């Protein structure tokens, strides 16, 4: 394996972006942040940043190649969402399906405040 690596380095072939970083650290940071919020489709509880299956490496390679070529993380994410739906990202966009998730805490907090207000008022009067 290390011999193979040495040979490929000696031959000057570009490193496989599925398993190695983009040479430009700024682009790599963008790619890493995006990969941490993309779901591995085979091992569905993990991000492609964490997973070691071949499919995750294939997805990382695509993400890094696109970002190395100058694509923005948003456009790469949109490319994947276009193919797999928002299920592929751990940061799903605000939509009709995800609205309760975002709005329920606010509604519950408002209900709690309203209940507390009633109780406090009564106590003050007593």
């Amino acid at each position, binding site marked *: 394996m290390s011999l193979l690596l040495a040979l490929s380095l000696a031959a000057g072939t570009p490193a496989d972006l*599925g398993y190695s970083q983009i040479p430009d650290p700024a682009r790599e940071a963008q790619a890493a942040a995006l990969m941490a919020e993309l779901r591995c*489709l*085979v091992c*569905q509880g993990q991000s492609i940043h964490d997973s070691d299956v*071949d*499919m995750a490496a*294939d*997805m990382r*390679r*695509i993400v890094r190649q696109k970002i190395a070529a100058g694509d923005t993380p948003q456009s790469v994410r949109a490319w994947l*969402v*276009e*193919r*797999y*739906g928002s*299920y*592929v990202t751990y940061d799903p966009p605000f939509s009709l399906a995800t609205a309760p998730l975002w709005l329920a805490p606010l509604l519950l907090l408002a209900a709690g405040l309203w209940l507390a207000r*009633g109780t406090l008022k009564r106590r003050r009067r007593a």
Partner: protein
Amino acid sequence: MKRWLFWLPLIVFAVLMAVAGSRLLVPPETVVKSALVGKPLPDFALPPIVPGKPGVTRADFATGKPRLLNVFASWCVPCIAEAPQLLKLKAAGARIDAIAIRDTPQAVAAFLQRNGDPYMRIGDDPQSRVQISIGSSGVPETFVIDGQGRIAAQHIGDIREEDVPKLLQALEDAR
């Protein structure tokens, strides 16, 4: 305090339990469907992987006739299980092309010799690039492509005996 308000937390709790409980009874969905079903097949061109059989390109579809596009691999066990069904589909007149995922010419040739060869073309996709570009998340998967090159349907997992008529019907509908 109004009397009904006293029961409200219990009611909310009961509703939540009913929702959670009913979801427990439904088996979880573990497959990821392609969001491209109903949309045009993306552009791609894959070289051949075995001698004597051409590779697969986007241009091979949209020829006016519906086709099946089977995503498979020689290292995939359910692909062996579905091989007889693919041969049945071929015998029934289905035109089947394939994409071999992360595979080698020797392994694919051995796979075809052992399990039969239902394919007209086989494209070599060593890094799942085309597989991901069409929204496929595993092997085996089978896409029904209509005569205009649109993805009409997607079958996830191995094709069972009972799926054969369904796929033939899907091909008929995609005409």
